[in-house]
């Protein structure tokens, strides 16, 4: 297209042709929409931190609403509260982020090796349990932790630990860096596990056999061959996991806030709750900066190497498993115990606790179904009815399903269209820009992204009405936050569809819309459908992203559950989290069924 030798009339005709091409029109439209929904919110957020707002009159006599100021940045970095507001949380975020990532990687790496490379028994049913903590809402684990280690020092009833051992757990085990790091690690180790397992599965055993023939021992092979090959994946997993932990809000909030232990993410929330919006936005930008630095590191040092592994997937050459010998059953027992502890035990704890009339008293006489089926009783839980009788919760359930469904469908279809444009028009710089812009939400820690939308849609701009407090806004942010994933799924799907299949339809006279509908969509459907399911589950358990944007009329299960947890109504919040957990697990099962069933057969037909 960048031909200089093209005569002027040729260029003009080309311009005319590209202006009427539906794909180009769609591309420009999507670029404009995404620029507004992805780039502009960030700029808007930055401007907000550099401007005096109405509320700032309380803070400073110099405040002139609407005028430029460094005030918020100076206050955050050098003000009297900077240690409490910025530096402390920053250090806490780094500590919990790095410690939990290391733990997650260790656990994930060892488990991945056991499952992928060893002849450990029971892999088939251990694997889904191992991924359970990741598909559960993150603060389910925090709630389960609280159930066990709750300390009466911060008020409330004693936890299971105290009930069994008779003494209160030390405070560092109940709240703060230790529990946050451990629960984050439990939530994220499956993520690391999947990444490392993917890399391990691509190792050709011939590499190891070659070393074996040259006389190397098992440990030497592990050290000299296996580890170097998966090292880039490890590094990538480290950075990606770290990037995810720092954006976590609910989990550190539940286990940190009671003792004033704050991370940057919880500080964003706390500041907004106090009405210090500009300070919250400064912190959101700090959070984004941390995420960007992490991603930059990943691209700078491991990007090129780890990409090698991403491209090889599902190629399915047989890799030899390594015999554990006498260790076979001990290893199995250890892995099974571990997966039970992190995958199933938390759910049992939540379940048990949700049927206790008075929290912390472990005895049969204390059992009640009130928190599930009961009607309002002023003597229990401030008169809140049981979750299955509660209008708020039924409304929230409906909202949750509606939000997850609509967002997943839109995200998948838009993702497929963007993927189509970026694959089929790879030589067009605008198509590349579209691909990149759709990836940007991945770089925003979710709570910061929520903060951006708080400012962007607070007031009407031109034809766009104020969306704050509307369901539409929740759909918008959910869709945009899922785009990086759905575009990736779409790219994989579109790449597999031969160009000739579409050309044949083009020759038959089918326009672009018809080709997309009758050729691309059906052929991409298996991949897109599973992507849709992933988005559905992802949106359903999302909290950090939307917590700032929720109003009473748009409540979803997760925010209601978080609200109960915040108020100390732990039985109700546990019951709610269990509902979400069950819904997510059902979603995952459907996903597995899709993967194995009808759609897989269709995929076979394509190849």
């Amino acid at each position, binding site marked *: 297209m960048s*031909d200089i*030798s093209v005569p002027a009339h040729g260029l003009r005709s080309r311009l005319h042709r590209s202006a009427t091409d539906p794909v180009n029109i769609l591309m420009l439209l999507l670029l404009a929409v995404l620029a507004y929904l992805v780039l502009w919110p960030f700029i808007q957020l930055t401007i907000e931190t550099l401007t005096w707002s109405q509320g700032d009159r309380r803070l400073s006599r110099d405040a002139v609403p609407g005028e430029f100021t460094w005030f918020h940045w100076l206050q955050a970095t050098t003000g009297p509260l900077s240690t409490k507001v910025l530096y402390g949380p920053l250090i806490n975020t780094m500590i919990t982020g790095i410690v939990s990532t290391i733990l997650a990687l260790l656990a994930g790496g060892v488990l991945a090796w056991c499952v992928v490379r060893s002849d450990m028994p029971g892999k088939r049913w251990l694997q889904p349990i191992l991924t359970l903590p990741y598909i559960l809402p993150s603060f389910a684990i925090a709630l389960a932790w609280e159930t066990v280690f709750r300390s009466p020092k911060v008020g409330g009833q004693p936890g299971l630990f105290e009930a069994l051992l008779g003494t209160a757990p030390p405070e560092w085990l109940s709240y703060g860096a230790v529990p946050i790091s451990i629960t984050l690690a439990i939530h994220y180790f499956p993520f690391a596990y999947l990444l490392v397992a993917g890399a391990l599965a691509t190792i050709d055993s011939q590499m190891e056999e070659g070393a074996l023939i040259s006389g190397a021992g098992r440990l030497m092979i592990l050290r000299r061959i296996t580890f170097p090959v998966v090292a880039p994946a490890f590094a990538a997993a480290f950075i990606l996991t770290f990037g995810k932990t720092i954006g976590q809000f609910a989990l550190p909030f539940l286990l940190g806030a009671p003792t004033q232990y704050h991370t940057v993410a919880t500080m964003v929330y706390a500041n907004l709750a106090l009405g210090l919006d500009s300070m919250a936005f400064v912190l959101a930008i700090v959070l984004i900066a941390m995420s960007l630095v992490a991603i930059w590191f990943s691209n700078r040092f491991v990007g090129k190497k780890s990409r090698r592994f991403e491209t090889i997937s599902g190629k399915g050459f047989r890799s030899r498993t390594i015999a554990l010998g006498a260790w076979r059953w001990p290893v199995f027992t250890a892995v099974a115990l571990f997966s039970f502890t992190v995958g199933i035990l938390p759910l049992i704890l939540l379940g048990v606790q949700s049927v206790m009339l008075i929290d912390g008293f472990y005895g049969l006489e204390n059992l009640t179904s009130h928190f599930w089926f009961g009607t309002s009783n002023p003597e229990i839980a401030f008169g809140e009815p049981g979750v299955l009788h509660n209008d708020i919760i039924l409304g929230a359930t409906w909202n949750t399903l509606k939000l997850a469904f609509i967002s997943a469908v839109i995200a998948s279809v838009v993702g497929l269209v963007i993927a189509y444009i970026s694959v089929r028009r790879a030589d067009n710089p605008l198509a590349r820009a579209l691909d990149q812009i759709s990836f940007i939400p991945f770089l925003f820690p979710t709570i910061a992204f929520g903060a951006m939308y708080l400012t962007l849609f607070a007031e009407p701009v031109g034809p766009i009405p104020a969306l704050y407090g509307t369901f539409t806004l929740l759909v918008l942010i959910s869709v945009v936050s899922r785009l990086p994933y759905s575009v990736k799924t779409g790219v994989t799907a579109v790449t597999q569809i031969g160009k*000739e299949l579409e*050309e*044949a339809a083009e020759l*038959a006279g089918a326009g672009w819309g018809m080709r997309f509908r009758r050729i691309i969509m059906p052929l991409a459907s298996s991949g897109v459908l599973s992507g849709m399911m992933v988005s559905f589950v992802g949106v359903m358990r999302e909290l950090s992203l939307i917590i700032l944007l929720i109003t009473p009329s748009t409540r979803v299960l997760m925010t209601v559950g978080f609200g109960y947890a915040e108020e100390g109504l732990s039985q109700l919040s546990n019951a709610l989290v269990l509902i979400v957990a069950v819904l997510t697990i059902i979603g995952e099962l459907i996903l597995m069924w899709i993967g194995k069933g009808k759609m897989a057969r269709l995929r076979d*037909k394509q190849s």
Partner: protein
Amino acid sequence: MAKITVRNLTKRYGSATALNNVSLEIESGEFLVLLGPSGCGKTTLLRCLAGLETPDEGEIIIGDHVVFSSKNNTMVPPGKRNLGMVFQSYALWPHMSVRDNVKFGLDVLKTPKGVADERLDQVLDDVGLAHLDGRYPSELSGGQQQRVALARLLATQPPVFLMDEPLSNLDARLRMDMRVELKRFQSDTGATTVYVTHDQTEAMTMSTRVVVMKDGEIQQISPPDQLYRQPENTFVADFIGMPRINLVELDTVDGRGTCFSNGDIQIETGWAPGVQKVIIGARPEDITLSADLNTPGEDYQISAVLPNGPETIIQLMRGQTVMIVRVGHDTEFATNQTVKLSFKRQSLNIYDAQTGVLVTPPDIEVAKAG
């Protein structure tokens, strides 16, 4: 039916030129084969005709319609050009049954259901797939898939067929059968056909005319027999024919310019090509060998005897010069035997060694005119 005219077509990809100023007239009902080594531009030309590629310059006219013109900013989209195409990979839609694959084109044309069904039954019956119409492409053999692609092409009865190496994915036997069938469908429908291949047997057996291409330029357009007998340059001569033509470079040895030699062998052309250096082209079957050393001609030594079914290929040496000769399968020649070699002067093609272009003797011009 439709005549196709291509004028001064040029297509570039960045700095590479895929088609360089190509002009071509394809008669209505003709079976034209585009032949050449990979990367010669034959597929690009076909895709330009289809409208799947946009040329940079030139003009394409199909029937009465200018479908592409760089001067008038005309670019008719593929679906409006009224042509059908068979792709090398067949490009069957894997998620549609055989019937739905064939029906798609009729759907686009919004053919009424009754008419469409009738037409579908007809076409599926023609290609012998009526009993498989509910199957999916992955459940068919390669030959059956090929037939579906063909049925899809025939369904909408386009006046122009485009085929991009349609037989290259079939095994040798099936390819033979399909050649006959393709040819039959083409003559039954009378559709103007442009067929891309790199297989010269396919080109020779099916075409009314062959276009040989190289580096985005047309080398020769001829009916197949003429292409074989009178390749217009050394590239075509060398490209066409298996075993390859003997091409020997020779210098003038006398003032008359009719006798040429390279030190090993000497040839008397009988007429003056008018150039200092020539390349002589002799097909292996146009050379006669004789064990009788009293026959006229030069002595050669047999360096290899390669029996190949109905024929035997014999490699000869004289000094540094190597010749390939094709003889019958019942030959009794043996390696290291000395033989006499002779040929008919008329069967030799003489090329200007500098340009590689055929130099035509005066009497052939006369024969051609007659």
